[in-house]
């Protein structure tokens, strides 16, 4: 393929709280970092994909792509605002790659940044957010906060496959270890966790304790999906896009007839088919982890662990620093931080930086890396396989 697509550049700003900055300010910081880290110019960019801005506020903006084109002073060949929750960025990259391969663009900026406002129970914002994450007619009236929606999958998965609270806690423990190796992780410098710490933290919605839940914060990230020629010009080791997979399950968790399956397996199967690789050829995985059950379900669905056995990967240390199958080398959303509207970019940036050999202290073997992102309440899925060799 003459226009073999790659992630040629990837950057993310430090997760945290930026009370003095608005979302556009965060976008500016992300773009500035991407430009500085990879020596590119706004005039190189001929495509922009972005999510709605301030989606969690009372003043959402739905033309982010126009705002950013104006900011950069460019008139792109292709550009739009799209949203599929946490899967947004995986899809951006998939469609940017298709556009690049078809010659419709040369360098597509896939970007997201955002605030994660603290919404108090009972506020108007909390109620309108609830109505968007579940069925406003048949789920909303029953008061299911986001953790309780994910919990429906978790409780059923535990029931059918023997996954334990200790297994889930071991995910949080391993990811806290990884976060100590990432200079920007929100829990960097915090004490390491034990399984007892997780199980002893207060219950949010069973089976999730406080430390089974990701940490809300604000951040932003971007990648540049480019043609082969562009990639080689700006980066000696781009992250080649070897395969992508998309699948959509059930938007409303109550309507999923099999709560142990959400569509992860289908998306991953498609990415493996396209890449020609098998799970045994993948060196490590970056997996969206709003809650500690998510990497367990994903590793088992994708084929990295037998059913009910992914917990052992974490408990034995194999998925942690020094292990033979690293998972979420940046600390995951559980310990790196969950950047609100931009959360789905964090594991992609990390996967790309690993393949590029730019992961610093936490660098692991990254010839082939699988990244899985999902959106909604495990409703929509996107798997990316990145590699060092095109």
């Amino acid at each position, binding site marked *: 393929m003459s226009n073999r697509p790659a992630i040629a550049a990837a950057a993310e700003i430090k997760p945290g709280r930026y009370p003095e900055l608005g979302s556009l300010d965060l976008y500016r910081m992300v773009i500035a970092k991407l430009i500085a880290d990879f020596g590119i110019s706004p005039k190189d960019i001929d495509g922009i994909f972005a999510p709605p801005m301030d989606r969690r506020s009372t003043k959402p903006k739905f033309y982010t792509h126009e705002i950013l084109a104006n900011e950069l002073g460019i008139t792109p060949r292709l550009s739009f605002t799209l949203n599929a929750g946490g899967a947004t960025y995986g899809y951006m990259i998939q469609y940017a790659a298709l556009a690049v391969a078809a010659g419709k663009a040369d360098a597509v900026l896939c970007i997201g940044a955002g605030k994660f406002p603290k919404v108090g*129970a009972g506020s108007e914002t909390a109620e309108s957010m609830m109505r968007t994450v579940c069925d406003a007619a*048949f789920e909303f*009236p029953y*008061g299911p906060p986001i953790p*309780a929606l994910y919990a*429906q999958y978790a409780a059923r998965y535990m*029931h059918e496959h023997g996954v334990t609270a200790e297994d889930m806690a071991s995910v949080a423990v391993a990811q806290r270890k990884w976060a100590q190796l990432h200079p920007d992780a929100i829990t960097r410098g915090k004490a390491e966790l034990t399984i007892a710490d997780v199980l002893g933290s207060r219950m949010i919605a069973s089976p999730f304790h406080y430390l089974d839940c990701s940490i809300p914060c604000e951040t932003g990230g971007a990648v540049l999906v480019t043609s082969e020629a562009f990639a080689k010009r700006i980066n000696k080791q781009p992250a080649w896009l070897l395969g992508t997979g998309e699948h959509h399950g059930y938007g409303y968790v109550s309507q999923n007839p099999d*709560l142990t399956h959400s569509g992860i397996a289908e998306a991953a199967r498609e990415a493996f088919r396209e890449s020609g690789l098998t799970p045994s050829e993948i060196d490590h995985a970056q997996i969206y982890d709003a809650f500690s059950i998510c990497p367990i379900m994903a590793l088992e669905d994708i084929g990295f662990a037998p059913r009910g056995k992914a917990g052992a990967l974490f408990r034995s240390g194999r998925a942690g620093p020094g292990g033979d199958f690293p998972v979420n080398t940046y600390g995951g959303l559980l310990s790196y931080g969950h950047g609100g509207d931009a959360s789905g970019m964090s594991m992609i940036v990390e996967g790309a930086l690993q393949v590029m050999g730019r992961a610093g202290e936490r660098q692991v073997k990254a010839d082939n890396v699988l990244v899985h992102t999902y959106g909604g309440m495990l409703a929509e899925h996107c798997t990316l396989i990145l590699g060092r060799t095109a």
Partner: protein
Amino acid sequence: MQRTQLPDITPISAPYWDAAKQHELLLPKCGACERFFFPPRAWCPHCYEAGQLGWETASGDGSILSFSQVHVPPFENYAETLPYVVAIVKLAEGPQLMANIIDCDPYEVAIGQNVRVTFEERIEGVSVPQFALKRANQ
């Protein structure tokens, strides 16, 4: 205290909520393939026929597919005591509903338990189906 969270009601779903006011659980049933489905919608998700939306009273019996005890509610005063239970109930007729499991110790709730429909009055005359554990003598 009556809860204030109300469902979005559309012309297609109105019969469901009207029946709930009478404490009746009414389920959508396809007039073409005669299978139950949920939620009410224009296309049957089994045979994809449109415009054949019929209704039939459900038995009110079901079992718990999954559940969570909620300790941090999204709404103030949603429950008088915490935790409360959010569950997915599989009805005897096949469809699945989200509901709270009420009138019980929340720690009694488990996957596979049999439940029976009950109704909770909300503000503005709206009534929502809820479920209670089915006791041995029921």
